[in-house]
């Protein structure tokens, strides 16, 4: 049997392995990010100082720095790979159907992964401009401990209804992306087992809705309570 193979680079299956690995890595990143955000539930001077201390730690601690570069890399890989997959998939059917009943056999989220991913990418760009850019290159004031005042920047952003609304919509899009993607990644990596797959599907579906629900809860809290007004 003559063998020719593109191995782990370039073949259709390999492209999906990279998608799944980068996607699952980003899922773990979401957990870390959410744990940080939960500190925003503590208002007042005490919460502000603690959050800014955390912000200082996250931008200076070497291990976190390395992790953040891996995260940028994962977003880049996931995006470029996703675009390549989507282009190939489109090219595989140059002429479509006149009548097509896609909802008869596949979930909405699974059919809209590229759209939901693009929405997420747009959100990431806006989000990084709002906080990451300002933290690294913007002109932030300092708090009583001398740390950059990321807290005030954050709570002020979410006092604006349109910013909070955009955030909630984008995170909902991410939830749908994950409702298919988080469990699909296991199938991509070859994990499908009569005993474990139902557990994986249940766990990852819960993950897909609960993690975004946490982000949304923080945003809604900030908008409703407006902790920046009391300081």
């Amino acid at each position, binding site marked *: 049997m003559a063998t020719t193979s593109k191995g782990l680079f370039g073949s259709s299956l390999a492209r999906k392995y990279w998608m799944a690995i980068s996607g699952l890595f980003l899922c773990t990143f979401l957990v870390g990010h959410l744990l940080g955000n939960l500190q925003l539930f503590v208002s007042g001077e005490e919460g502000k100082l603690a959050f800014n201390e955390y912000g200082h730690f996250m931008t200076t601690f070497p291990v976190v720095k390395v992790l953040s570069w891996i995260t940028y890399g994962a977003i880049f890989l996931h995006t470029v790979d996703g675009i390549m997959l989507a282009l190939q998939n489109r090219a595989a059917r140059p002429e479509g159907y006149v009548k097509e009943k*896609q909802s008869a056999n596949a979930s909405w989220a699974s*059919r809209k992964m590229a759209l939901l991913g693009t929405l997420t990418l747009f959100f990431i760009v806006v989000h990084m401009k709002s906080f990451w850019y300002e933290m690294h290159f913007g002109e932030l004031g300092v708090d009583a401990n001398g740390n950059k005042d990321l807290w005030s920047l954050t709570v002020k952003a979410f006092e604006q209804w349109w910013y909070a609304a955009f955030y909630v919509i984008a995170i909902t899009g991410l939830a749908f992306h994950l409702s298919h993607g988080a469990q699909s990644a296991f199938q991509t990596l*070859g994990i499908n087992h009569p005993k474990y797959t139902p557990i994986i599907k249940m766990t990852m579906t819960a993950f897909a809705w609960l993690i975004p629900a946490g982000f949304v809860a923080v945003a809604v809290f900030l908008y409703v309570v407006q902790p920046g007004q009391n300081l």
Partner: protein
Amino acid sequence: MDLTLKIWRQNGPQEKGEMKTYPISGVEEDMSFLEMLDYLNDKLINDGIEPVVFDHDCREGICGMCSLFINGEAHGPGRKVTTCQLHMREFKSGDTIYIEPFRAKAFPIVKDLMVDRSAFDRIQRAGGFISVNTSGNTIDANAIPVPKENADKAFDAATCIGCGACVATCKNSSAMLFASAKISQFSLLPQGQPEAKERVLSMVNQMDLEGFGNCTNTGACEVECPKGISLENIARMNRDYLFASLSSNK
């Protein structure tokens, strides 16, 4: 029953096609879908119109020759059924039925509803076999022990008739369900082991060369497959390819 048929007509591979409307009456519930098309073609021939070209052979759900995208679904509205086994009682008098060819770059249209599915044959030729000499020195099938579960799974995979409904229904025109079934039917059995790595690497490579899309795990193929081929096969192919890529000699 009276029906309005909207059928894709296209004179040849390079020609532009379009949907044409054919009202038809006198269709009986007991006709199979293909018999209904035969009946239409009789009428068209009588009226001096080119009959509609469509693929078929066994008409008993075992050969994989029939195709057709009917009312937005491969092999029509039924589950685990080929177009030749679909009957007109699934429709109501007065219905409009859309009949289109399977759509994929890798399945070019020959004429009207007939598409060229030889890309599947080339995937099969790339590794869907075992290299043994079967002339005169055949070994007794029971000489090699096979676990019952694996024999059953290999048999299930081997029931794929190569119809291409999985490709037609997939939003990416992906051939993963077909290819994974054809790989699994060997990789589950001891006889398939010596060439297992080369097989999965070669067949996936050929599948990519043919211009099929990638798998988004939507699961549409499994729902529309007339033989109920399971997504488990795609996962098996995914892990076999991963391990073969990491451990092959080339």
